[in-house]
């Protein structure tokens, strides 16, 4: 391990210390817009939950850089899998805000569009990491030029499935990128209790999966690391493990009270490393963004969220008959009977 193995392009203060990826101005500003949307999405979903208008929600405040940059470099044909903390990356990849509201709202159907190639976000930790390897193995078998990005948390890396996935990826060399959003906590369990090594990325070497560590609050560094990993994957060079070091500024979910366990000083220190502030400084230094533009952008994003929310809140209650319809392609007779009884009685027997 080198002294500072953490890949950065921008310092926490927003100064450039690495090679800025060669991206169009719109793309650079686009990343900012996504980050702003991530913050607004998270804040508003939390507020809606508090008002009883939304189900349990997992905020992503503090993780906006990683949440945007793990998805933004992907093409439409690429795949993205993740858990609840990756709900925003899904939006960047093409899942409508409305679908995410339905999912968090506990609605049915959730109807992710197929073309987004995002599997409805995962609750059972680390299971999706294996699905990602499987999709990537299928891509390799079909000789397609697609890559699979899969996100999971630092806690999830302790599960057997995560490690089995690394091993399969080492052996079969499919086009997959494992991106660990190390946000310092698994609910109340700090990273140092999760594993004895300093960096989760160190796990890769034992499975033959190249790995790297990036500053997860540096949107450009994550973007660049993902781009390189995707290029490697598409060139047939196999999997990459990326650890993005970031921090969960909010609660684990709306059901959690972090004051029970989170040291305030740690939280304060990370508030100083806000990924949005850092990147705004960069954009302003490059004169890609003015205060007025920023304000307009916030207004636009707020309006976009509100438009989706209006649609969500206008939805009729889910049709309970769907509960039966989505279990099998064709209902077996007993389920058909249960469905009919249900329709007849208004509730079911």
């Amino acid at each position, binding site marked *: 391990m080198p002294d500072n193995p953490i890949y950065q392009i921008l310092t926490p203060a927003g100064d450039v210390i690495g090679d800025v990826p060669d991206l169009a101005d719109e793309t650079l500003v686009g990343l900012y817009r996504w980050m702003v949307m991530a913050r607004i999405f998270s804040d508003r979903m939390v507020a809606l939950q508090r008002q009883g208008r939304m189900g*349990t929600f997992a905020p992503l405040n503090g993780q906006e850089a990683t949440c945007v940059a793990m998805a933004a470099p992907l093409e439409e044909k690429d795949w993205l899998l993740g858990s*609840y903390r990756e709900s925003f990356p899904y939006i960047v990849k093409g899942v409508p805000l409305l679908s995410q509201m339905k999912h968090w709202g506990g609605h049915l159907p959730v109807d992710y569009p197929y073309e987004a190639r995002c599997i409805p976000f995962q609750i059972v930790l680390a299971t999706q990491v294996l699905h990602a390897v499987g999709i990537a193995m299928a891509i390799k078998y079909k000789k397609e030029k697609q890559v699979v990005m899969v996100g999971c948390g630092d806690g999830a890396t302790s599960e057997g499935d995560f490690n089995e996935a690394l091993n399969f990826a080492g052996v079969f060399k499919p086009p997959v990128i494992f991106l660990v959003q190390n946000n310092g906590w698994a609910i*109340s369990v700090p990273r140092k*209790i*999760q594993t004895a090594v300093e960096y989760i990325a160190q796990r890769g070497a034992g499975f033959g999966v190249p790995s790297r560590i990036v500053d997860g609050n540096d949107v450009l560094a994550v973007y660049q690391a993902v781009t390189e990993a995707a290029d490697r994957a598409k060139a047939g060079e196999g999997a990459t493990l990326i650890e993005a070091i970031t921090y969960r500024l909010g609660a684990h979910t709306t*059901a959690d009270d972090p004051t*029970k*366990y989170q040291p305030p000083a740690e939280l304060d220190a990370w508030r100083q490393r806000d990924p949005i502030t850092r990147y705004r400084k960069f954009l302003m230094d490059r004169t890609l963004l003015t205060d007025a533009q920023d304000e307009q952008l916030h207004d636009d994003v707020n309006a976009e969220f509100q438009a989706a929310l209006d649609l969500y809140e206008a939805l009729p209650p889910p049709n*309970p008959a769907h509960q039966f319809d989505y279990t099998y392609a064709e209902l077996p007779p007993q389920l058909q009977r249960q469905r009919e009884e249900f329709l007849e009685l208004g509730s079911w027997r």
Partner: protein
Amino acid sequence: MPKWTMVQAINNALAIELERNPDVLVFGEDVGQNGGVFRVTDGLQERFGEARVFDTPLAESAIVGTALGMAIYGLRPVAEIQFAPFTYPCFNQIATQVTRMRYRSCGVYTAPLVIRAPCGGGVRPPEMHSDSVEALFMHVQGIKVVMPSTPYDAKGLLHAAIDDPDPVLFLEHMKLYRSFRQDVPEDRYTLPLGQAHVVKPGREVTVIAYAAMVNVALAAAQQVEQASGASVEVIDLRSIAPLDEETIATSVGKTGRAVVVHEAPRTGGVAAEIIAVINDQCLYSLLKPVERVTGPDTPFPMPKLEDTFIPTPERVARAIYRVLEP
């Protein structure tokens, strides 16, 4: 006597066990400083120290597998799995290891451990938190499965579970955690595992339920009794494995009519076994087919549909009327 919620009653039982036996350890995900995601272990780490009450890395198979090792060594581990469906990742350790240590070693090594897990539907968490697992572990031989329906029962049964020389899966229904308070003695007491409880005696029909469905059954019984005057007996199983066949058979032998209620999907559920027990032991007393009021044969519903599919007093009452038809 204090009036406690189920969370308080369980917390108190754990504290008593930690106090009286230095071989009792409590561990799992978030049970330490956070006191558990439902606060069931609140304050225990502070009181008993990090060696007795501790957080583990996020790996259910490891939690159960290491708990088994500790039990083999002679400790009395009480491991928490954060939600009942997360027993799936440790299904292998439970079904092939925890349950078989006694058999495999012919009693030389044993597995006196308790796996606690919040369970059940009705609190609208995200997907995959509310699967019912009791029927699965009922079929896996070598482990006891306990599902209390009240704070008082929870405490007494948990003490008995920790006392037990064999492994116990202790499922705590989330909806009951704070829904009501009850007088709970502060001192230690046990309630026997494997014994059902006739919560409400009656003569004409037996309703069998467990965990959160006991209150649903009681509400239905009251509804029916008030409306029709029929006398309804309600049995709380308390233990799913071993099943208290005698209490079931005695009751149905008397009433000749039965309704079984659970949240779990119907096919292959606990109700099927209860019907088989009735078939084996008191078929000739049975006047009508036993009714099953259960979840549908689908995945557990999305939050917005929970209420539609978890059995309600109305559905149970309807089933009671059906079996009461002459």
